[in-house]
C-alpha cells in the first residue's frame, strides 16, 4: 500500500486573515504519514500564532518517530506519543500566552492523524474533524468538543436548532486553554481505496455532506480533491478560513 497526500489552507471568501494551519509529512516508504490541521482562536494575532505553534510542536515531536513504528504491533505506543505531542503543544501555547498580554486569549483546535502499518491513529481536541470516505460513503471519525455537540447528544436541541444557537462556536476543549488538555483518540483500519481527510470547520460549514461525497468520489488524486474542496467552499462564499489535508490510500 502507498499513500498520496495533499493539503491546502485558504483565508476564505470573507475573512482578512488566516488563523488555520496545516502540515503533513509522508514517510519515505509512503506507508507512514503524519497529517495536522489546527484552527486558531483568540484575536487578530493570537489565532495565527496558536495554530502554527501547535502544528509545529506536533510535527517536531512526531516526524522523527514516524519511521520507528514497528510492524506487527499496531498500538506501539502511538496513542501515548500523540498525547505527549498534544501536551507539548499545549505547554508551548500557554508559555507564549503568559509572555505577551496581547496573546492571552489564544488557543487552537488540533486534529492529528498518524498513519502506520495500515492504521490511522487519530487524536483531536476541538471541532476540527477527521473524515473517512470508503466506497463513496462519508463518515466523520471525530466528535466535536463543542457545547452544541453536547446538547445534540443529550437531546436538548435538534440538528434544526444547531445552526441558530448563539453559542454555536463555543468549544468545550481547546489546546492552550488550560494547564491540562484532554485528548480524544481512536484507531481506524485503512483499506486500499480509502480517502481520509482532516479539515477545519470552515470547510464543513460551507459544504454539505452531499457536496463532500460528490467531490471525493469524482476525483482520484489527493491534489485535485483538495483543490475541488477549497474551490467549492469559496464558490459557496466560505465565511471562515478553509483548510484540508487529505490522504488517498492506494
Amino acid at each position, binding site marked *: 500500500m502507498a499513500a498520496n497526500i495533499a493539503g491546502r489552507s485558504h483565508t476564505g471568501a470573507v475573512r482578512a486573515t488566516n488563523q488555520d494551519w496545516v502540515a503533513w509529512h509522508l514517510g519515505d516508504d509512503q506507508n507512514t504519514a503524519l497529517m495536522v490541521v489546527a484552527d486558531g482562536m483568540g484575536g487578530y494575532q493570537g489565532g495565527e500564532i496558536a495554530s502554527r505553534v501547535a502544528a509545529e510542536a506536533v510535527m517536531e515531536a512526531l516526524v522523527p518517530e514516524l519511521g520507528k513504528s514497528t510492524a506487527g504491533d499496531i498500538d506501539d505506543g502511538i496513542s501515548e506519543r500523540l498525547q505527549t505531542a498534544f501536551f507539548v503543544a499545549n505547554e508551548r501555547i500557554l508559555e507564549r500566552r503568559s509572555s505577551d498580554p496581547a496573546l492571552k486569549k489564544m488557543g487552537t483546535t488540533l486534529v492529528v492523524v498518524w498513519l502506520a502499518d495500515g492504521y490511522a491513529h487519530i487524536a483531536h481536541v476541538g471541532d476540527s474533524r477527521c473524515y473517512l470516505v470508503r466506497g463513496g460513503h462519508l463518515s466523520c471519525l471525530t466528535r466535536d468538543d463543542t457545547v452544541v455537540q453536547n446538547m445534540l447528544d443529550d437531546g*436538548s436541541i435538534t440538528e434544526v436548532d444547531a445552526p441558530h444557537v448563539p453559542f454555536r462556536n463555543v468549544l468545550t476543549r481547546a489546546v492552550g486553554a488550560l494547564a491540562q488538555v484532554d485528548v480524544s483518540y481512536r484507531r481506524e483500519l485503512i483499506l486500499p481505496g480509502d480517502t481520509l481527510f482532516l479539515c477545519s470547520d470552515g470547510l464543513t460549514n460551507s459544504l454539505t455532506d452531499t457536496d463532500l461525497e460528490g467531490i471525493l468520489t469524482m476525483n482520484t488524486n489527493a491534489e485535485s480533491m483538495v483543490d475541488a474542496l477549497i474551490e467549492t467552499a469559496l464558490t459557496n462564499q466560505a465565511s471562515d478560513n478553509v483548510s484540508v489535508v487529505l490522504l488517498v490510500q492506494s
Partner: protein
Amino acid sequence: MASLSQLVDNVVANTFELSQAKTLIGRRTDNDLRIDEISVSGQHATIEAVPNAYLEGTVDYYITDNKSTNGTFVNDIRLEARQRLNSNDLVRIGWNEFRFIDEEENALEKTAYILD
C-alpha cells in the same frame, strides 16, 4: 432574563417576563400568560427556562406546542417538536404574535474558547 412582547400591528402592546422555570400559555385562567382570544387553545403552549449544563450562567428557553388547535409558530414555521428559542424569534400563538427577547445572549462574549 428573557421576555415575550406581544405585538399588535408590529407595535409592542404588552411584555411578559419569563421569570419562571415553566410558563404556561393559553386561554384558560390557570395559565401564567393568559390570552383570551378565540384562536388560542385552553392550554396552548409551554415555555421552559433551563440552565445550560455546559455554559455556566446561560439559560436556554424551549417552547413546546401542547396539541393546540391552531398551532404554535416560530418565525412562521409550525412547531412539530420542542424547540430552542433565540433572541428576536417571532412566536405566534394561534393568531397572536410575540417577539421573544433574551438580553443575556450577548453575555456569551465573556466565555472562553470562542472561535472567532
